[in-house]
């Protein structure tokens, strides 16, 4: 029956195209009757229609607000995430979730909820900073490769291939071994390792935008190269980077957790979701909740970023049709 499926797939693709044309046409011909909207406002409108993306956005906002305001409410409500009261450790350690400690307490009697919230600070910081580094390097490299082409293109893209060829986490561990484990070095390592993907996406995006007739039109008007670049190519080429960057934040958070889990990242007693998992590992059988909460935090936050990126991709897809 595989053959049959394949046949109908062809048909349905055709249909989808036809219908899209029809639908797009219906919206498009209204022309000036439509209220003026900028493309960005259009993007927001489409983003809001995507329920999963909105859910992702809400979750990321909640995590962000909790992390930023943590100093104000965590210590009085949940207790200090780092300092321990040595006299009380044995009495407080490994308590299951309760009203007083909603996520329970860990091996040293600290509140797990407090540590998860402070861990979010690390995750978001590392995620955003690492991706910023990747984006800066990647945009530069991708732009050089796409504009100058020839030898510089070959060199940059082959260099990117070399980066791809190394096992990612091993490369990161090697770099941190070199720089020494710390939060700063973690985001530097992740950031540096992330540029090749950004460079690739940006390069191909520029190359496809370059083919558009409005670029030729600008050239025929006598526009200078910097003008063509800044007015015509870049604004139309960055959309995939916004999407890819958003998704990459999720990836960077995951990498940070992995590195911290392996002891190469944020060092205890400073909490990070990764090192919390590492510490919880030995207690898994007696106190599974210690492992559950940081694990859930990683899962939901990474998922939220990916959903947001996905939604942005659909929303930013101008296609000029709609």
């Amino acid at each position, binding site marked *: 029956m595989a053959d049959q499926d394949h046949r109908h797939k062809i048909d349905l693709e055709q249909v989808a195209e036809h219908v899209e044309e029809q639908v797009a046409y219906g919206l*498009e*011909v209204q*022309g*000036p009757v*439509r209220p*003026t*909207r*900028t*493309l960005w406002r259009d993007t927001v409108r489409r983003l809001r229609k995507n329920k999963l993306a909105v859910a992702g956005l809400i979750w990321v906002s909640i995590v962000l607000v909790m992390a930023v305001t943590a100093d104000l409410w965590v210590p009085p409500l949940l207790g200090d995430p780092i300092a321990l009261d040595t006299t009380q450790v044995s009495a407080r350690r490994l308590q299951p979730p309760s009203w007083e400690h909603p996520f329970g307490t860990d091996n040293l009697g600290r509140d797990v909820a407090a540590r998860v919230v402070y861990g979010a600070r690390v995750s978001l910081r590392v995620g955003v900073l690492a991706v910023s580094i990747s984006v800066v390097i990647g945009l530069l490299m991708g732009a050089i490769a796409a504009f100058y082409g020839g030898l510089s293109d070959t060199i940059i893209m082959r260099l990117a291939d070399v980066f791809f060829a190394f096992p990612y986490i091993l490369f990161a561990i090697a770099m941190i071994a070199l720089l020494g484990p710390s939060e700063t070095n973690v985001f530097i390592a992740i950031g540096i390792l992330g540029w090749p993907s950004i460079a690739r996406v940006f390069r191909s995006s520029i190359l496809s935008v370059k083919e*558009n*007739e*409005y670029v*030729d*039109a*600008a*050239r*025929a*008007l*006598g*526009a*200078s190269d910097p*003008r063509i670049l800044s*007015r*015509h190519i870049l*604004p*139309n080429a960055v959309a995939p980077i916004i999407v890819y960057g958003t998704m990459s934040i999720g990836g960077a958070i995951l990498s940070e957790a992995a590195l911290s889990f392996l002891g190469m990242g944020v060092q205890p007693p400073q909490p990070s979701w990764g090192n919390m998992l590492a510490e919880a590992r030995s207690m898994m059988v007696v106190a599974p909740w210690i492992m559950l909460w940081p694990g859930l935090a990683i899962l939901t936050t990474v998922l939220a970023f990916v959903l947001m990126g996905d939604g942005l991709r659909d929303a930013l897809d*101008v296609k*000029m*049709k*709609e």
Partner: protein
Amino acid sequence: MALLEVNKLTKHFPVQQGILLSRLGGHVSAVDDVSFSVEKGTTMGLVGESGCGKSTTGRCILRLYRATSGEIRYDGRDVLALRGADLKWYRRNVQVIFQDPYASLNPRMTIREIVAEPLVIHGIGTREEQKKKVQELLEVVGLNPEHISRYPHEFSGGQRQRIGVARALALNPKLIICDEPVSALDVSIQAQVVNLLEELQKEFGLTYVFIAHDLSVVRHISDRVAVMYLGKIVEIGDWRGLYDRPHHPYTQSLLSAVPVPDPVKQRERQRIILEGDVPSPIDPPTGCRFHTRCPIAQFPICAEEVPELKEIAPGHSAACHFAEPQPIKTQHVHGGSGEVIGAPAEG
């Protein structure tokens, strides 16, 4: 003196082979030894099937492609040698309208930014003056000047093409290269844009190079027409002579292949149906490039000797060893020019 003169224009594109270490593997001869001239205030039509080099010719004239060899003269000046301020002067005088009304307008710019861009680039006027000029131009092309701050995606295909026309007019150019400007439009809208182009020509004394694959549209708008096949001009002449008495077998079959919107005529028409596909321009046929599909080819001459463009009537030339007139039309031909011209030209 002709406003635009194209002389033995040739454009080759290198073909790259290999993935890791790219090397040149021959070239595509997209335009080969093309010559024509366009008088001020007239329209030159370039017509042919895909891959015939008509758009490449246009892009060479616009200096979007660097010609491999040959000469382009605008107003007596050597276009290919222009640099700096001279090139800017040329760009001010020679403008372009593209085919795809979706791809030819930057989706992130407003109509005002798009139409004002030529003025900004050439530093003409203050911001307020530019805005006024944009509004004037929109009015000229039949759009509501109040829509100045809208984005291209809010307009229909025909309206977008008008925006493209407004942008091309902004610098008061003398020559406009129209590259398939109506091919993407529906017939009723196509007629609007064709009429607009004709009106603008009259009003501003514009000169057009009109590139299209639609023979009827080209005939309608052009004073002179060149038919291209695989990078070469096979026939060139004034519109009436070329359409009434095509001499080249390719022109003849092209004309006979276009169905006319008239059922009775269509039933009576003799059609020449060419065999096969257009050969690859990477390795074009020897001799006459059309000989592989030509219904009247004779061997060995057609496969060996490249036919020169020969004048067969005043201002009407064909590149065929056996050029012979064949009146395709079934309708009355205007008096005077109606006689069929003599025997086949000697090869």
